[in-house]
């Protein structure tokens, strides 16, 4: 400790001490000279005075810090001398580091979304699965009670279901919110405590208890202006008055993105075991294991399956840690793929800088040799070179921060989804900064180490004599560079093939005929609450009136309603076909859409055969439309019109006559190229509470949003309208994943390609520079331009070929990860891969062309004098 204090004191007087040292040594020399009378030989016996001084200096100065400071200044001077190199290196690194940080931020969001829960690692979800494990089933209320009372391996178990509800009161416009209806112990199990009022108590879920609700913080804040007296006030949930009893703290929205909670009060249908509409979450005790809980719940559920074989047969409970299910979990492998991709970009950038450092090092061999000759150790040289590369990478990091900011802004603009899921609310925070700093410094050491090791191993004698690294050193440096270029090319192939596949997917996605004309269509969503619209007739009446009012608006051509928009899936139904054998165990399945007659006019759809729905259908025999895929599957020889089918599960359902066959409209959102067999039920036949309203407009559709809302409010002022969007906007959103991934991969691949070309160029140019003399000789003895070109290209092509040989198999393996998002293209798509190789070859030729041209212009006379 004292030593440090002394050192610090000395450090402040550094220059003075340097002079003292000088004088002390001079005195020593002079004294010796005086004694021996031989002033000429005194310095020789003294040895290497510079080295000695350095040794003494190192003792008293914080050697590391001090030398670091020296190295820093030296490195900055050296880098400033070659601004071109410095600029290219910093920009390459900035692209790599910036992109990496941006993706890190996105990945962090996707991976670390914590659901706002404490001890999230102890939270589990319980679901039922059949033996094939192909389908997850919900839980029934009696199942839930049995599991809860028997599961000793859990600290708590709660049930909930989720619905979107209309929230209204006497203050402001009704709004649409997500309401979680949850067993009263839910807040206890999820450890969420209110900031205002209380959570649920057991009495709240007693049948007949007065309805209560708990608000989430943001609803309390946005809708009620943080009213401190909120507890005790009355709100209407789907037109049923509820008393607000509490408000949860900010960020606490478990189990979904909840806006408000109501207690789960079992009614008569809920008490049937076949009524499985609940999801369960539970908490493990401290130190409890998921596996143990899973085993116990499986045993209990097997017992229930035996006991209640008509409802529970073959169903087993499964336990999963909650972190694996919610949020962006399904996207995680994709984000991980992106992270790897961006890591490749960074690697390529690092390789670029390493190659350039090696090439530059060839010219510095003499400088380094001189430093070694006057007493610098290898470690010192190594550190000096590393400091240089770390400075480069830190500069790259600073610039990279800007790249990351820009990239995230672009990503935000690209997603444009409102409201954003929690994990997509991105910001460059302290953690991102730490990551960037670590990546920058790590990259600097990573790409700097190989060149520095190579350069610090100079053969002093040969280097000073030749002015170069010596032939052997040169060859070693070149083969290292070639290896780096091969690596770049291999990584580039992986990225290019990923990009190629994603771009083809995007093209396929947009090229697929949707089946409707989406331009100029405005859509919105309405959910008619049961309390106010209990009867099908009242729902039909509401929509008839609304349609008439909308069509009366200026700029509206036609309006209609449908249960599912294009790419918005369908309602699964089972049905019987008249005259066909039906097996009650395996009823025929298909997808159904419920639509008004005007839906097809709004969407610009004409029947292939037969007719569309008519307003007058309600009066006559019930009808149905089928799409072409459905017709083709059932009646491949072209029949179908006039056939009758009936929805299964309800003995009172009527036979529906097929009156028309409509063209296929893409409805499947998982595979946006697949046409599913579908039937279209008239809304008057089978009204649904939750419908989309669609309208074809003569003016830009977005401009009609306000008049549409007003029209609905005039009809029912407690009814919220939500998701007022253009159809094109919705479609873009459903294609977001592919688009975004495609765009990102394309950008990364383009950057990687440019960087790899720079790398190849640097190596080829360096090799041409080194071989100027040889080229001169070849030309002098009659070598043609073509010979020289062959020489240069042969040098450039070798790493390229090696890269392709390594990269193609890697790409085949890696692109499998993308399988889930590819549209209409297989992960091993030969077209994409051929294109990748062609693009890479073109880049290779480009990288070699410039140095090759320079090589053919070598003047033999000048070249022979070159060194």
């Amino acid at each position, binding site marked *: 400790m004292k030593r440090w204090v002394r050192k610090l004191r000395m450090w402040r007087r550094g220059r003075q001490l340097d002079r003292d040292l000088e*004088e002390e040594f001079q*005195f020593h020399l002079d004294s*010796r000279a005086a004694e021996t009378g031989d002033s000429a030989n005194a310095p020789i*016996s*003294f040895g290497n005075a510079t*080295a*000695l001084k350095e*040794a003494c200096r190192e*003792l008293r100065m914080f050697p590391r810090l001090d030398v670091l400071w020296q190295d820093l200044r030296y490195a900055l001077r050296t880098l400033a001398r070659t601004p071109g190199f410095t600029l290219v290196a910093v920009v390459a690194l900035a692209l790599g580091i910036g992109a990496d940080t941006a993706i890190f931020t996105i990945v962090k969001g996707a991976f670390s979304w914590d659901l706002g829960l404490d001890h999230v690692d102890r939270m589990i979800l319980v679901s039922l699965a059949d033996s094939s494990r192909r389908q997850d089933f919900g839980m029934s209320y009696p199942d839930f009670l049995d599991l809860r009372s028997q599961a000793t391996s859990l600290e708590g178990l709660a049930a909930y279901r989720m619905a979107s509800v209309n929230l209204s009161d006497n203050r402001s416009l009704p709004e649409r919110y997500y309401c979680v209806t949850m067993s009263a112990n839910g807040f206890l199990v999820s450890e969420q405590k209110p900031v205002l009022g209380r959570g649920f108590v057991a009495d709240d879920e007693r049948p007949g208890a007065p309805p209560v609700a708990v608000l989430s913080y943001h609803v309390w804040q946005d809708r009620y202006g943080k009213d401190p007296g909120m507890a005790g006030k009355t709100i209407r949930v789907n037109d049923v008055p509820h008393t607000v009893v509490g408000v949860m703290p900010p960020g606490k929205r478990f189990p979904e993105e909840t806006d408000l909670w109501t207690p789960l009060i079992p009614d008569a249908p809920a008490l049937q075991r076949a009524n499985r509409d609940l999801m369960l979450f539970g908490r493990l005790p401290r130190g409890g294991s998921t596996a143990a809980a899973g085993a116990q719940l499986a045993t209990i559920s097997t017992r229930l399956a035996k006991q209640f074989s008509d409802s529970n047969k073959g169903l087993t409970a499964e336990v999963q840690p909650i972190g694996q299910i919610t949020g962006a979990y399904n996207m995680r492998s994709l984000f991980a793929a992106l992270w790897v991709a961006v890591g490749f970009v960074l690697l390529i950038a690092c390789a670029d800088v390493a190659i350039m450092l090696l090439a530059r090092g060839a010219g510095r061999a003499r400088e380094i040799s001189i430093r070694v000759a006057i*007493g610098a150790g290898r470690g010192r040289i190594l550190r000096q070179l590393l400091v240089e590369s770390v400075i480069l990478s830190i500069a790259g990091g600073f610039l990279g921060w800007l790249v990351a900011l820009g990239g995230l802004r672009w990503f935000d603009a690209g997603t444009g989804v409102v409201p954003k899921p929690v994990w997509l609310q991105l910001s460059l925070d302290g953690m991102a900064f730490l990551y960037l700093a670590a990546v920058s410094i790590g990259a600097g050491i990573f790409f700097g180490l190989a060149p520095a090791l190579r350069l610090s191993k100079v053969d002093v004698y040969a280097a000073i004599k030749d002015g170069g690294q010596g032939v052997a050193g040169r060859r070693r440096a070149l083969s290292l560079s070639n290896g780096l270029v091969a690596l770049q090319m291999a990584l580039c192939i992986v990225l290019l093939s990923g990009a190629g596949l994603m771009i083809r997917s995007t093209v396929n996605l947009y090229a697929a005929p949707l089946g409707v004309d989406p331009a100029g269509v405005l859509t919105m969503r309405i959910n008619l609450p049961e309390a106010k619209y209990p009867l099908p007739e009242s729902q039909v009446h509401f929509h008839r009136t609304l349609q008439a009012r909308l069509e009366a608006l200026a700029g509206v051509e036609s309006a209609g309603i449908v249960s599912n928009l294009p790419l918005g899936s369908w309602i699964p139904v089972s049905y019987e076909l008249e005259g066909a054998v039906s097996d009650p165990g395996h009823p025929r399945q298909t997808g159904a859409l419920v639509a008004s007659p005007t839906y097809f006019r709004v969407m610009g759809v004409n029947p292939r055969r037969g007719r569309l729905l008519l307003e007058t259908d309600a009066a006559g025999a019930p009808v149905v439309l089928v799409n072409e895929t459905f017709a083709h599957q059932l009646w491949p020889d072209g029949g179908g019109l006039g056939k009758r089918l009936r929805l299964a599960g309800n003995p009172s359902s009527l036979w529906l006559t097929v009156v028309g066959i409509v063209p296929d409209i893409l409805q499947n959102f998982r595979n946006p190229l697949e046409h599913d067999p579908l039937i279209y039920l008239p809304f008057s036949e089978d009204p649904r509470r939750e419908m989309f309203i669609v309208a074809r407009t003569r003016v830009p559709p977005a401009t009609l949003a306000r008049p549409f809302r007003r029209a609905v409010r005039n009809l029912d002022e407690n009814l919220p309208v939500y998701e007022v969007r253009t159809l094109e906007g919705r479609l873009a959103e459903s294609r977001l994943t592919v688009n975004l991934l495609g765009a990102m991969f394309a950008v990364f691949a383009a950057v990687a390609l440019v960087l790899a070309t720079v790398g190849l160029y640097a190596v080829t140019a360096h090799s041409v520079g080194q071989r100027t003399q040889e080229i001169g000789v070849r030309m002098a003895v009659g070598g043609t331009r073509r010979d020289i070109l062959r020489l240069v290209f042969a040098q450039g092509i070798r790493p390229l070929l090696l890269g392709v040989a390594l990269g193609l198999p890697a790409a085949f393996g890696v692109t499998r990860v993308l399988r889930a998002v590819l549209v209409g293209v297989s992960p091993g798509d030969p077209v994409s891969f051929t294109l990748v190789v062609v693009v890479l070859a073109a880049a290779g030729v480009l990288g070699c062309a410039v140095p090759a041209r320079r090589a053919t212009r070598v003047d033999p006379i000048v070249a022979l004098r070159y060194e």
Partner: protein
Amino acid sequence: MGTARQRSDGELVQGTLDMLVLKTLSRGPMHGYGIAQSIQQVSAEVLRVEEGSLYPALHRLELDGMVESEWGQSANNRRAKYYRLTALGRKKMQAQAGNWKRLAEAIARVMETA
């Protein structure tokens, strides 16, 4: 980061040099050249102190608080840096001397009986 320190026959092991320097300084303040000369003379030219070892050793001892330095007049009227033993240095020197004596006697006994 090293300066290459060459080893030669006359070179002293580091700890030993420290001890000799401290012992020499126990007779009074002295400059670097004087210390080297003194050790050489007292040892009857057997021990030759290399400058390459002496000065780093002196500076290290100073850092460790064993010696102090100040500029003074040399015999031939030049400015010279004089080193003086501190109390800590004296204690260390005595401890080392004791150790050394025991060690030397032990070695001598072994060598004689063998």
